[in-house]
Each structure stands twice: as C-alpha cells, then as structure tokens.
C-alpha cells in the first residue's frame, strides 16, 4: 500500500508539521509512505521526502500511489502549493481548519493578485451575499476587519474540497460545516499527538501541594483571538490577582500594544513576556506551570496542538467553550463562555484558588484523554482504512464530476419539459460507467440481453 502525504514538514513553524512528524512512524508501520513538500528545506532526519513544484506536479508518482492525502490549513505559506495540487488530482483532504477564508483571501488577493478570482469564488459558493462580502473585503484590504467579520460566515471551505475524495476533520463539530457537500465522505479523527517518551507528567498530588503565587502560562503564536488582552483585563480586576504570575511564551501580534496594556492594568510585576520559544522550551514552561490559558475566539474550526501539549504535561487549562475547544470532554479543561468571558475567567481563577487539587485532577484527566484519543496509531489505522475505500470514492467522484458538467451544459439548451427524461437517461449512463454492479441476464433461447434490475437502476440513478 502506497500513500503520498502532502504536508509542511519540520522545521516549518506550524502545528501541521508537528502532526505529520508524530504520524510518520505510525503510518510507516502499515504502509509505504512518501512525504511531499514544496519547502526548499526540511529536517534531514526525515526519510522518503520528495519535493514538488505546484506548477508541474509529478503526476506519474501521484497516480502510482493508492491514495494522495493533502493537509490543508489556514496558512497560505505552507498550504497554497498543496491546495494547487489537490484541486487537480483527487485525494483525501485533511482540513486543519474548518474556516479557510483567510487562506483563500491570502491566495487570491496576495499570492495570485487576482481579486476577480476571489470575487468569483465568493459568488460561486455564497451567491450575491458572497459577492457583496468580497467587495467589502476588497474595499478595505489593509485593515482586514471585513475579513475577520466574514471568515466564519463565508468560510470558503468548499473550495478546498472541490476535487476531494473524502475529508478528514479534527473537530467533531466541524462535520456540520461540511453539509454543503452531503455526498462527500467526511471523517472525524482526533488530532494525532505523540507524547514524548521522556515526558513524565507531574501528578495532581504533587502539583496540588504547591503554594501561591501560581504559575499561569500561555504559549504559541499570540494572535488577537488568543484573548490575551481580555484575560489581562479580567485578571487585573480581581482582588486576588497577586496569587498568580503569567508567562507569555510565544510571539505576540503586537508586543508594544500588549506591553502598554500590561502597564496600564498594573500587571507589570506579574507578567513575563518571553517571546518566541522552541517546542522543547515551551514544553518545559508548561511543565513548570500550574494552569494554562488556551482561549480562542473566534475560532476557525481548528484543533489545538497546544492543548495536546498542555495535556502532555497533565496541565489544566482554561479554554473557550466554542468550536473544537467546546467539544473537549468535560472534566479535562475549564470552560469560558465567549459571551461571558470576563465573568468566567474570574470565576475559574477563583475556583482554582479555592481548590487547586480539582484542577490538577483535570490535568490528569486530560493526560488520559490524550493517550486514549489522540494516539497516532489510531489515526494511522483510519488513514489506511481510507486507502482501501479510495477506489470506490474515486469512481463516485468521477460520476459526480461528469453529472455536474453534463447538467451545466444541459441547462443551457435543454427545454425544461424534456429535461427529466434526458436527465434520467444520462444519470443511468453515468451510473453504469462509474460503477453500477449490474448483472446481465441473457435469455437462453433467444440470447437477448436484459438488465437484471433495471427499475432499481433508474431509482438509484435518480437519487444520484
């Protein structure tokens, strides 16, 4: 079994690369795996890596695999080339984000400088509303406010799946977002993560023995949706604020602004801004912390590798009760409602002070969830199972593409009254070519051929 896996690879600074790294041994136990990247450099410890040029993909090698798997997320830098191949060559698309408006805006407006293409895509999937939204985005290209406003309403996810045989999502709630393509097989797989063998999380008993001030940590890239600023505001308003210290481990979208807010809120003695950190440094920070902040709002439907790293250290975390985060098992994280953000942050911090042991237990539950749900072996099993189904999906995809093309052409010239009859015949022909397993029955006396279950054929073709 041969699998082509398109993904950013380490040292690319993206969680998708880390996911891939975690999965490689598990998939290699079960199949021949070739990693494909359009990066110029990759970690030389990785084996069987091939470089591809998105403008001239290696079709022969793509066709020779049993399945091609494309990892697509919101970062144009890492995923534009992969998307370019995926739209021409059918395969399974792993969606690392459910809302891809930022990704496609980046491709059309920055990379391709094709505003008409962007407008066309928005109109194609969302009609006149989409076109108007596109016009607003185009009218305010610098502020990005319109983009933020429309990203969840017009996610443009279908554009990532236009040639997909099946979709994989890491967010259980995201399946609903794929209802626009009901015919597309869609699978939820928990984000894979391979805990470091060296990791021995500190048990809740020893963590609960700690004394104030407690150590808070927030890690990763600090975009506005990480809610750092609202957290600082809520925390600063608490009389118990001195019971905590916060370490900000990762680059901040606007460091000056955050530093000035920290001063304004009187938190300068309680917050350390640490800047960019390697994964290992980040893990070390998490290990020493008592509570992690992993808030997100809005969310693009992504799963959070950061959360899995938090669980790896058996660390409790505050998360926003939305998207992927909202689907996490109760008892493994502490939730903050997006519409009661300040109130809930304060409530949870007080709860922590009152009963640190229960939060430590939360971290332990998280660690168990990580081991149970997110094991790379489990993910790899599912990928291999998909490979077995890929041929059937391919036939189905060919049928649907043909039906769509024929339908679009017929619309231009076919009188509505006659279209039903012809459409039925066409559906029948498409179904036959694409894989209807019929049985031909021949009359032994006359030798005449006859379909065994013709009415059923028409019924199935009609449904198709």
């Amino acid at each position, binding site marked *: 079994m041969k699998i082509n896996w398109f993904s950013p690879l380490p040292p690319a600074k993206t969680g998708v690369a880390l996911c891939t790294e975690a999965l490689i041994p598990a998939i290699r136990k079960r199949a021949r795996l070739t990693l494909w990247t359009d990066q110029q450099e990759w970690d030389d410890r990785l084996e069987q890596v091939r470089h591809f040029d998105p403008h001239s*993909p290696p*079709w*022969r090698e*793509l*066709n*020779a695999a049993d399945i091609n798997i494309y990892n697509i997320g919101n970062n144009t830098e890492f995923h534009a080339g992969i998307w370019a191949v995926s739209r*021409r*060559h*059918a395969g399974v698309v792993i969606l690392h984000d459910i809302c891809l408006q930022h990704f496609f805006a980046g491709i059309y407006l920055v990379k391709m400088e094709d505003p008409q293409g962007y407008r066309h895509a928005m109109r194609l999937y969302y009609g006149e509303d989409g076109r108007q939204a596109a016009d607003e985005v185009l009218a305010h290209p610098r502020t990005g406010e319109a983009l933020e406003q429309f990203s969840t309403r017009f996610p443009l996810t279908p554009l990532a799946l236009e*040639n997909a045989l099946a979709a994989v999502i890491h967010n259980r709630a995201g399946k609903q977002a794929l209802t626009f393509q009901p015919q597309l097989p869609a699978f939820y797989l928990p984000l894979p993560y391979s805990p470091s063998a060296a990791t021995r999380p500190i048990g809740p008993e020893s963590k609960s023995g700690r004394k104030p001030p407690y150590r808070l940590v927030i890690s990763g890239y600090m975009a506005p949706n990480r809610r750092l600023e609202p957290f600082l505001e809520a925390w600063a308003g608490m009389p118990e604020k001195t019971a905590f210290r916060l370490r900000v481990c990762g680059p901040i979208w606007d460091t000056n602004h955050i530093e000035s807010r920290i001063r304004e809120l009187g938190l300068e003695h309680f917050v350390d801004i640490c800047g960019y950190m390697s994964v290992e440094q980040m893990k070390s920070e998490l290990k020493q912390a008592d509570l992690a902040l992993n808030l997100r709002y809005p969310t693009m439907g992504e799963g959070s590798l950061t959360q899995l790293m938090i669980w790896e250290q058996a660390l409790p975390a505050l998360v926003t009760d939305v998207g992927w985060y909202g689907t996490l098992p109760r008892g493994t994280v502490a939730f903050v409602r997006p519409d009661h953000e300040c109130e809930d942050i304060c409530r949870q911090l007080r709860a922590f002070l009152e009963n640190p042991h229960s939060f430590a237990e939360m971290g332990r539950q998280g660690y168990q969830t990580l081991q149970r749900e997110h094991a790379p072996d489990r993910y790899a099993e599912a990928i291999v199972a998909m490979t077995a189904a890929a*041929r059937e999906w*391919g*036939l189905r*995809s*060919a049928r649907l*593409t*043909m039906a769509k093309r*024929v339908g679009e052409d017929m619309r231009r010239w076919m009188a509505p009254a006659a279209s039903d009859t012809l459409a039925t*015949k*066409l559906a*029948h*022909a*498409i179904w*036959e*070519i*694409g*894989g*209807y*397993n*019929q049985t*031909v029955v*021949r009359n032994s006396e006359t*030798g*005449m*051929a*006859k379909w065994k279950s013709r009415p059923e054929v028409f019924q199935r073709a009609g449904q198709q």
Partner: protein
Amino acid sequence: MRVVIATVKIPFIYGGAEVLADGLLQALRTEGHTADLVAIPYRHYPPERILDHMMACRLLDLTEAFGNSIDRLIALKFPAYLIPHPNKVLWILHQHRGAYDLWAHPQGGDLIQSPNGHVIRDSIHQADRNLIPEARAIFTLSANVSRRLKDGCGIDSSPLYNPPANAASFYCSEPSDYLFYPSRINPLKRQTLVLEALARTRHPVRVVFAGAADSPPQQQECDKAVREFGLKGRVQFLGHVTEKEKLRLYAESLGVVFTPLDEDYGYITLEAMLSRKPVVTCTDSGGPLEFVAHRETGLATESQPDALAEGLDEIWTDRNRARAWGLAGRKRYEELQISWENVVSHLLA
C-alpha cells in the same frame, strides 16, 4: 442479417484498425449481409474526455434504423464496445491500454501522466468489467488481447484471427541483402532497439524501415541513433511506401524484423509468413509470438540489443536456414486457416 459494425475513429487517422473494419464490412457484404460501419469520433485527451466518449456510447441506440431492426452489432474498439445492444458481439481489437498493461510503462502510459489519471483508469476498469459481459459472445483480435482482458478484467474470450489486407497479393522473390521492418515509427514499435542491435552485430546486417513516424521527434530519435551508432549505409528509412512497393520489399527481403512491445496482433508477422520470410521478433512482443515458432519459422530473442544482434546475424549469415524458416512460416499460415469467412461465421453465430 442486418449488421452494424461499431468502432471509433480519430479523424484523419487510417491504420490497422480501420483496415480491419473495412475488411470485415467487405466480408459481410460478400456473404450477402446488409452491413454498415458506424464510427464514433474519439479523442482520448484530456483524460476526462475518455469518460465523455464512454458515456456518449452508452447513450447511442443502434437497435434499429428506420423501423428495421439491426440484428447484430459487432463492436470492435473501446469505447464503441460499450454501445448497448441486445445482440451484441464483441471482437475486441484492444482495450484502452493506458489503463491496463501500459499504465506504468515508461513510454506507453498516458493516463498515469495526467492529473486524476487513477480515477479515469478505475472508471474504465469498472465500465469494462460491468459492460463487456453484456455481449452475447466475446472475441478478440488475438490470444494476447484475450490474455490482457482476462488479466485486467477477469473476462474470458476467444481469439479470432483475420487475414491481412490483400493477403492474396503477397509473393516471394530471390532475396536481396536487407532485412525489412515495415511499421509506423513509434516508441512501442522499438525501431531504436533494432538500431542498437545493429550497432552490435558481427556482420554488416542491413535493415530497411518502411512506415511514417507518428511524430517528427520519433523520426529524429531514430536519425540520432543512426548517427551515434555509425549505421549510415546500413539502414534506410523509406517513410510511407505504396502497397505495391511494400509487397516488393517483403518479397525481396532476407527476412522480416518486427520487435514491438506487446503488440496486440501484428499483421506484419502474417504478411511476412505470406511472403515466405522468416520473422525476427522478441519474447515480449506479444501478438507475433502466436505465429512465430522459435527456430522453426523465425526467431524470438530477448529484447536486449545483444540478443537481438545475435538473431539478426544468424538470419543474415545462414540464408539457407532463413529460406527454410520462411517456407515453414507460409505452411503454418495455411494450416491456421485464417480467413474472413471464418471470422464472419463466428461473429454471426
């Protein structure tokens, strides 16, 4: 009987398949049947077009014409053999080889070089497997095509041989100093393999090639090989020759070289046998191997330049043996009773 022959046609192309279709039409009419030829236009690129043509064939109705029933549909080529008919007989010249035996071949594969090629390939497989069995009988051009159909689709069939065009016109003359390779020039016919072999022969073997190149680069590749191997004076590329000239070239040759890769059938073998000439072919040449008995009517060598060179040297130097193998080839042809009458009787049974 009212019979329609269904095939596909690429405009402006007239090759072996077209000759066969015309021959069958003539044979049916000669035997008193009302017969006509229906050729569906065909284009195999981009690959999605293949599916369009398959569907177009499925939508055709050839069960009657002007109220008169068509009693038998004889379908020859992919995707024309997908046309539905209650009394359909297939005489498959070949399937879409790019989806089967040539899928991964370095020169032969077209689908594998195309985006979504695997999806088109699987659709062709599925349609062939599901729809070929609609026919009341399945014949193929050769045992080689039958083997491929079995390997690719698990479908049984019987080979049915037909004579080359103008079979009665082939004759034999006193041989001159050349071997003859009549064929279109393309990578699957492997003219360059012959040139490589010529570079390794111990004797100054000469080969005359007749037939046009499918595209200019393919002729250029041969010309380059001639220069690189220093074969000037030992090979001749005549391009397209008339039928009369072809008959003479066969008749006056020492023997015929025909080294394609897995040929469906290969009229050239039969034409050589009709001309009483031995045939040098390769063990992976497909169709010719159904007729060439090694060291009885010719030679089947490995498709390596050294092995082929040895075979060419043998025919060149041992002319008595070459003559004997040629005569044996003609005798074998007679024994096979290859005739249009036989073809028609099977297709209309």
